[in-house]
């Protein structure tokens, strides 16, 4: 069973890289449970997309809005703070996510080369195996 089921949905939406999509297809070919789930996802998507588009009846949005309020100067002063506070929370969340994600990126190729350099220095190592492990690309 695929560990991350959201990959099936992503695959259906064409959001995976070629390598990821190939890996998913290989798994689906071998796993009947995931294949069944994938087919159900596909059917559900097709069913939703097949629903007819409707025009809403006139006045439906007005019926959904709350009754107009008497706006005082004080309530206006506090009212602008609500979207600003929401924006600040969004900024805090975004900054929190950004600062916890990477500020330094290291290519795996560099890591592979340093590991292979360690192998290259070893006596009795099988020589042809060393450059093979030096390629992460």
């Amino acid at each position, binding site marked *: 069973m695929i*560990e*991350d089921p*959201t990959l099936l949905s*992503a695959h259906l939406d064409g*959001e995976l890289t070629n*390598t*990821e999509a190939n*890996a998913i297809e*290989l*798994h689906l070919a*071998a796993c009947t449970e995931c294949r069944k789930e994938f087919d159900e996802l596909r059917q559900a998507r097709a069913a939703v997309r097949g629903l007819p588009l409707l025009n809403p009846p006139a006045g439906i949005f007005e019926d959904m809005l709350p009754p107009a309020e008497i706006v005082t100067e004080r309530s206006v002063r506090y009212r602008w703070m609500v979207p600003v506070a929401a924006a600040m929370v969004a900024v805090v*969340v975004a900054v*929190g*996510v950004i600062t*916890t*994600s*990477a*500020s*330094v*990126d*290291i*290519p*795996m*190729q*560099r*890591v*592979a*080369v*340093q*590991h*292979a*350099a*360690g*192998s*290259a*220095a*070893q*006596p*009795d*190592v*099988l*020589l*042809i*195996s*060393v*450059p*093979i*492990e*030096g*390629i*992460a*690309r």
Partner: protein
Amino acid sequence: MSALLASLVLALTFAPSASPELAELFSTANESEFSGRQLSVTFADEGTVTDIRHVAQSKGMAMAETNKGATMAGFGVLYDDDNTAMASPDSIEMVFSDRYEVSVETTDRGIEATVYEGEPVRARFVFDVESGALAMTEVFSEGELFRLQMFIPDPYVTPMPPMGDMAEPEMMVEVASPRLPAFEGYQTGAEFEAEAGGVHRFYTDGLFRFSVFVFPRDTTISGMDSVYDANYFGRDGYYRSYGPSMTTVTWQSSEETFIVTGNLPPDHLTTVVSQLPEPEPKSWLAKMWSKLFG
């Protein structure tokens, strides 16, 4: 030849080995000349990973090439095709772990060296009788075939570029106070500086080899292909990638970013990973973010 390379060649000639039969087969293989394709198949939990790349060996140099790049190795130096080279000043005395036993016999496939770890076969190497080149490698994990590599020869030998055209190697710099652990059953040497304030240590048991890298927490690793979520001992937060001869696992603890990369079979890799700090559990916000945006 520079004094540095001369000393490295000397180290290669006189270093001892505790598995003389396999060492002799490797030595003969290292002297053979060939060009061809190496086909690799890894049977991973996430699926089968296949790879084919051009390989060549001649006059003490070996090369591996894909359409994305090439590396060469020889005389203790690793060359990358962006004209960089790296060498380690440290070589580990090659002690074949006593958990392995080797038996060698000639069959109709060639000279077969079978490595046992206890009762099950752990690895098998098949060498061509005439040239001595390595024709096939099988690695097993818990009795099942984990990795298969086969060599398909060309009718010619690719010439290697002259040594004079190669970059001078960057020497790995040893750290003053090593902090990476030793792992039972593996030999290790010095600890070295790595990129961006990281550290690196190399380990081998004579059959398998791997490296541990530790970087500051705010580090990501790019360019890893086919990365899958993985968990060890019921803990998630690990990311695993299978290459043609390597498996790489990376994760972040609360303080650092770890990479374990090498040709370890899965059971050995699990043992190594288990002895390093665990991943930091994802916060509810990070879990929600992952669910919504992947």
